[in-house]
C-alpha cells in the first residue's frame, strides 16, 4: 500500500514522462485526424470562397458562392425535399415505440419476432432499395397488385410520380430503420422499475394513465436521442434516393447531399459544392441546438 503511494508521488513529480508517451499513443490517430478531418475542414471552408473545377487554376470569388446559393431555386427545393423526408422521423418513432411495447412482453417465441424486426436494419441498403423499387413498380409491383386486389381503383404510381415518390421513400426508410430504434426503446422500457406499474395499478390507474404518467416520461432521454440522431441522419439523406429514384422523377427526391454529390463529383464545381456543404452544416447545427434547448426545457 505504502509502495503505491510512493509511486504516485513519483508520478506527480515526473509529469513530463507522460507527455512523450501520451503523444506516442495519440500519434497514429492524431495524424489521421489531422489529415482526414481537421485540415479538410479548414480547406473546405476555404473552398467555399473559390471557384475550382480541379483543372483550371483556383479563382477566389469571395462570397459569390453563397450569394448564388441564396438565389439558387434548386438549393431551396432540395432543402425542402430533405425536410420532407424528415417527416419519417416522428412516424418512425411511433412505429418503433409500438414495436418495442409489443416486443416487451413475456411471450413464447418473442425472440423470433425481435430477430425479424431487426433484419432490415442489418441488410444492405442497396439490396433493400432495389427490392422496394420492384415492390413499388406501378404496373407489376407487389404493392399495387395488393391494392387493386383489395379494391383500390387507381393505385398511386409511387416512385414514378413526383407527388408519391417522397412518401414511398419515407415508408421504405421506416421499414428499414424501425428495428434499430425499437431496440433503443426496448432498453428504455426494460429500465423502468416494475414496482411503479404495480403501485399505480393498485391506486386504480388505467393502462392509458400508466403509459402517460410512467412510461412516457421515462422515455424522454431516448426520444431526445432518437430525434437528434434522426435529424442528423435526415440532413445527410442520399443512398436510398440515389439507388431507388436517382433523385427523380423531376428532381422530386433530390436531397441536399445529393446536390453536393452532383456538384462535386459529377460537375466538378468544388467551390460551390463546398459552399452548399457548409450551408447544410449550418442548418444541421442550428436544428441540433434548437432541439438541445427544447430538450433541456422539458427535462
Amino acid at each position: 500500500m505504502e509502495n503505491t503511494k510512493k509511486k504516485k508521488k513519483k508520478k506527480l513529480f515526473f509529469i513530463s514522462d507522460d507527455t512523450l508517451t501520451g503523444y506516442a499513443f495519440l500519434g497514429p490517430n492524431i495524424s489521421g485526424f489531422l489529415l482526414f478531418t481537421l485540415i479538410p475542414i479548414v480547406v473546405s471552408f476555404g473552398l467555399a470562397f473559390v471557384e475550382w473545377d480541379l483543372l483550371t487554376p483556383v479563382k477566389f470569388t469571395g462570397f459569390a458562392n453563397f450569394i448564388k446559393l441564396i438565389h439558387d431555386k434548386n438549393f431551396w427545393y432540395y432543402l425542402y425535399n430533405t425536410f420532407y423526408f424528415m417527416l419519417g422521423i416522428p412516424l418512425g418513432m411511433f412505429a418503433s415505440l409500438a414495436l418495442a411495447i409489443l416486443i416487451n412482453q413475456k411471450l413464447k417465441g418473442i425472440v423470433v419476432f425481435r430477430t425479424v424486426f431487426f433484419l432490415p436494419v442489418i441488410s444492405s441498403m442497396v439490396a433493400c432499395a432495389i427490392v422496394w423499387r420492384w415492390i413499388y413498380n406501378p404496373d407489376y409491383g407487389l404493392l399495387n397488385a395488393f391494392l387493386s386486389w383489395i379494391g383500390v381503383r387507381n393505385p398511386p404510381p409511387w416512385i414514378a410520380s413526383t407527388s408519391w415518390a417522397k412518401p414511398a421513400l419515407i415508408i421504405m426508410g421506416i421499414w428499414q430503420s424501425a428495428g434499430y430504434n425499437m431496440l433503443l426503446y426496448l432498453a428504455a422500457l426494460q429500465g423502468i422499475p416494475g414496482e411503479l406499474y404495480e403501485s399505480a395499478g393498485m391506486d386504480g390507474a388505467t393502462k392509458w394513465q400508466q403509459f402517460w404518467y410512467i412510461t412516457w416520461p421515462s422515455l424522454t432521454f431516448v426520444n431526445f436521442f432518437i430525434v437528434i440522431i434522426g435529424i442528423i441522419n435526415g440532413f445527410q439523406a442520399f443512398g436510398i434516393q440515389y439507388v431507388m429514384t436517382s433523385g427523380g422523377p423531376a428532381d422530386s427526391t433530390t436531397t441536399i447531399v445529393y446536390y453536393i454529390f452532383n456538384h462535386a463529383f459529377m460537375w466538378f464545381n468544388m467551390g460551390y459544392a463546398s459552399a452548399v456543404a457548409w450551408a447544410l452544416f449550418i442548418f444541421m447545427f442550428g436544428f441540433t441546438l434548437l432541439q438541445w434547448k427544447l430538450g433541456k426545457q422539458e427535462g
Partner: protein
Amino acid sequence: MESLERELSRKRSKRIEFVKNTISYILLLAIGATMILPFIWMVSTSLKEAGAVFAYPPEWIPNPFVFRNYSDAWESVRFGRLFVNSIFVAVCTTAGQVITSSLAAYAFARLDFPGKNKLFLCYLATMMIPGQITMIPVFILLKELNWINTYKALIVPMMFTAYGTFMLRQFFMTIPKDLEDAAVMDGCSKFGIYWRVILPLSKPALATLATFTFLGNWNNFMWPLIVTNSEEMRTLPVGLASFQGLYNTDWTLLMAASVIVIIPVIIIYIFNQRFFTKGVVMSGLKG
C-alpha cells in the same frame, strides 16, 4: 365462499391474459409478416423465369424454379471480386479503427500531458461536422496522391474516427485504477498496461466498436461510390447499384444479386444476435 370467489377471479384474469396474448400474437404476426415480406418477395422473384415476374395476380411460388438466375447474376456482376474487395476493405478499416482509437482513447483516459483536454474537445467538436464537408477536400487530396481507385483510398481515410476514440475513452474511464497499480508495481510500461490490462478488460467495448465499424463499412455506399471508378475496385453495395444501372428492369437477375449480397450478413447476424442487440443499446445510450 371466499375461495370460490378467489377461484373465479383467478379464472377471469387468466381469461383476460389469454385474450391479451392472442391479440399480441395476431399483431406480432401481422407486423412480422409485413417486415419480412420484401425479403420473401426478393427470394421468390429471384427464382422465377424472366417473363413470370409480370404475372397478375403475383405468384409467390415460382414455377418452374430457375436457379440459373443466381449463376447468371454471379457472373455478370463478378461477385467474386466484389466480395473480396468488400471483405478486405471492411477488415482493414475495422482493424485500423480499433487499433488507432484504442491507443488514443488510452492516452485520453489515463495519461496526463499538456494540451490533452483541449485536444479532446477538438475531437468532440469535429464529431458535429458532417462527412459531406470533409469528403471534398479528402477526395482532392487522394487525387493528388494518385490514390483514387485504389484500396488505399477505400481504407486509409476511414481508419481514424473521433467517435470510436470517444466511445472507448468513456469505457476505459470506468475501469478501476487499482487494477493498473498492480501492473505498475510489477514494472509494467504504459504500453504494457494498455496491452495487458486495459485491452483484455475492454473486450465488450472493442467488440462493439469492431462490429459496428465492420457493418458500417460493409454497407457504406457513398465513399466507395466517390473514390472508385472501375469495376474491379468496387465494393458490394456500389457494384450492386451499378449492376442495377445496367440491368434496370431485369428483375430476376437483380433480385438474385440482392439475395447474394444480403445472405452473408443475415447468417452472421443470426448467429451473433445477442451481441448485435447489446451493441445497439451500448452505442446508442452509453456511447
